[in-house]
């Protein structure tokens, strides 16, 4: 695996524009990349782009511009003989990915279809590395190592949840695993992630903690990429070379708004180079390709070489949330992606390369079923928060509730502890 990481040369990324280069040279570079990368991997996407008005130019560049990474991966696959060392993953890694993706399918803002992204990225991280997510955060929390029980209990609003039932499905946090949320409004997590990355740099350069190489990953969707916070943070992250990876889970739909109807240039990855960082487009339905891209981006951030923008083209198999009637998406489009189920794809890869037997994967499926069942059972049996919890955690220092008429801090009032104080 180390071999594949190193052979995955940085020059396969679209490099940011070097300020010392002339504009002509830049053009050449960009053009060169487009000419080289003549493949595309998402048939349906192409079809959609063709529908876009006055943009034959765009649709062309989309199909031509698909990023080098998938090409690298493909080459590797073609050249791979049966020896394990040339494969993208080892047996153990494959089983781990399979298990993590298997765990990721449940919950409220469903993640089905996008499992390859969370798994492909987050399983590469250390515990000290941070992850910032959106309202589809339960999966990122699971991938980062938050126990399924705690995640499920949080969904149930129970005290045993990772946030004591105070956060809920869209606000998952884990200090222990450095899951920084859990942000339910589009885009607001990106600045927070940028701040976490700033802390890494600050610790290294100001506090002189030379070994602090922690990276932060910010996950968000295609809809977010039209929000100012996205652009503002790309700018700041590149400006200060922060160790952050911006991971766009482009599932083509922002609830009912098609990516193509909302975005002037639908190729999000291109916005990386515009801000001076590499932009990468990867097949988000293929966990192995995602993983290769993630490795390079993480290594880059750890080295102190700054941020990377990765656009993962993916698809959610279900509506936006349990409340979404999902009436707008073309059944043909859905079927197309359904055939590209990332879990099935990994399964197939592992079989074809003799990395796992049917029995082994069945065993994992069973393990996951049991884990989920056990988590549900645990959550179900866990206690609801009691009233005394109500006023806890509003302030880290509860003196923030102030001084009452009796001259005592309100938080010293027994009613405060009971949760019945009027604050």
């Amino acid at each position, binding site marked *: 695996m180390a071999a594949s990481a190193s052979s995955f040369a940085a020059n396969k990324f679209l490099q940011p524009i070097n300020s010392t280069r002339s504009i002509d040279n830049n053009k050449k570079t960009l053009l060169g990349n487009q000419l080289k990368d003549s493949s595309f991997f998402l048939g349906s996407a192409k079809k959609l782009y063709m529908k876009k008005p006055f943009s034959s130019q765009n649709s062309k560049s989309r199909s031509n511009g698909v990023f080098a990474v998938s090409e690298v991966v493909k080459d590797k696959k073609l050249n791979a003989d049966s020896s394990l060392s040339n494969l993208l993953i080892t047996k153990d890694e494959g089983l781990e990915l399979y298990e993590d993706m298997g765990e990721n399918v449940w919950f409220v803002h469903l993640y089905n279809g996008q499992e390859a992204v969370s798994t492909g990225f987050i399983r590469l991280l250390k515990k000290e590395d941070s992850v910032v997510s959106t309202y589809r955060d339960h999966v990122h929390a699971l991938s980062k190592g938050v126990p399924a029980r705690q995640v499920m209990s949080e969904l149930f609003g129970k005290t045993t949840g990772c946030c004591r039932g105070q956060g809920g499905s869209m606000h998952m*946090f884990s200090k222990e695993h450095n899951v920084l949320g859990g942000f339910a409004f589009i885009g607001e997590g990106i600045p927070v992630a*940028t701040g976490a990355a700033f802390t890494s740099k*600050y610790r290294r350069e100001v506090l002189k903690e030379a070994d602090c190489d922690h990276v932060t990953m910010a996950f968000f969707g295609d809809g977010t990429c039209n929000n100012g916070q996205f652009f503002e943070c790309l700018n700041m992250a590149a400006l200060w070379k922060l160790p952050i990876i911006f991971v766009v889970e482009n599932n083509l739909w922002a609830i009912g708004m098609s990516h193509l109807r909302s975005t002037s240039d639908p190729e999000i990855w291109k916005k990386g180079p515009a801000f001076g960082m590499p932009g990468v487009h990867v097949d988000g339905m293929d966990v192995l390709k995602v993983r290769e891209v993630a490795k390079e981006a993480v290594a880059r951030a750890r080295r102190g070489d700054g941020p990377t923008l990765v656009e993962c083209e993916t698809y959610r198999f279900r509506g936006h949330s349990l409340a979404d009637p999902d009436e707008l998406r073309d059944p043909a489009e859905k079927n197309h992606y359904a055939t590209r189920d990332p879990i099935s794809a990994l399964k197939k890869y592992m079989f074809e390369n003799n990395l796992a037997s049917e029995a082994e994967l069945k065993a994992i499926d069973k393990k996951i079923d049991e884990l989920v069942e056990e988590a549900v059972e645990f959550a179900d049996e866990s206690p609801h928060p009691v009233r005394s919890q109500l006023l806890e*955690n509003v302030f880290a*220092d509860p003196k923030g509730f*102030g001084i*009452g008429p009796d001259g005592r801090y309100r938080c010293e009032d027994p009613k405060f502890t009971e949760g019945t104080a009027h604050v």
Partner: protein
Amino acid sequence: MAAIIQGIGAATALTSANSLDTKKSFFSNSRRSLSVGAERKGRTFVVRSDGHLSYGLNGRGRRAEQLITNAVAAKEDTAAASTSSKPGHELLLFEALREGLEEEMDRDPAVCVMGEDVGHYGGSYKVTKGLAPKYGDLRVLDTPIAENSFTGMGIGAAMTGLRPVIEGMNMGFLLLAFNQISNNCGMLHYTSGGQFKIPVVIRGPGGVGRQLGAEHSQRLESYFQSIPGIQMVACSTPYNAKGLMKAAIRSDNPVILFEHVLLYNLKERIPDEEYVLNLEEAEMVRPGEHVTILTYSRMRYHVMQAAKTLVNKGYDPEVIDIRSLKPFDLHTIGNSVKKTHRVLIVEECMRTGGIGASLTAAITENFHDYLDAPIICLSSQDVPTPYAGTLENWTVVQPAQIVTAVEQLCQ
């Protein structure tokens, strides 16, 4: 964002900041209007605060029973004439803020500053002047003009161990960061089940200045006050500016520190010894018997101006600078109400849903039986702050109105 306009607004401040030696201030500006006169006189009312030294190094650790004595300050309106032979050192309010900030940065390497023009430029009102050369560009971070994002970045940095002081070049610009302040600053500690702390200080110049126009003359307390999980304090003297700045930085809670554009050049002698104030505590400015006047920030000086007239007319008003805008120090306020039985609130905040409205509600709720007259609340008018000096003066409460209100209350 509106930084260019702000630059014009800040011009007065810069002029005075650059001419420290000549001790010029806003108040010598030729565009001076009625209230400026009040301001100038107001300077002499700055309360000598050396008596507060007993707060010790960390006011937050104090026990409740000490509150009474600590809330009491000198009664006499001693002119702040100072000579070098007196203890302490004399400085302007913006310098006091800087001194507090600098001391905390020296004390804790996790304390950092971020905002527009806080570094090389030294801050639009020079509160961070000289800090970037001393601590480096990363600790005193000049950000792009992206309020929502750099505020969010401060929050992310706070979650991961830093203690950022986020400057809004003008408090009004922080409206662009309202989502980060409200959803993330205010809620993350709670939604994370107490796992993450957000020890940030959000500060900057606000209030109605001198013809800065509507957008730069905002009274934002009302907007921020109902955000759960956030504390708000307003400074009004160099002494409390420094003490509150230090307390806000040390607090594990997110704190919004309101500074007033027209108070940066107030001068006061403050102790050489280190001190930290209590974020939750009100400040007794002038003990009295007849009526309780609750105020904060710049209106403190309008109140003290009016108090002079009132004293001449035979009234003995008690003036309290509530300082903590959220939560209220109901102990100090309550004790005063129980003594005077009459309350006048004077604020610069918007009338609708403002601090005064909340204060009125809190007093009615807690001390209704002690009141001999309905509470009067003088707020600024619910209009966008007008540009014209005459209209601007009519927007905020003037000393004459305060005198009339007290006379009415004490009938």
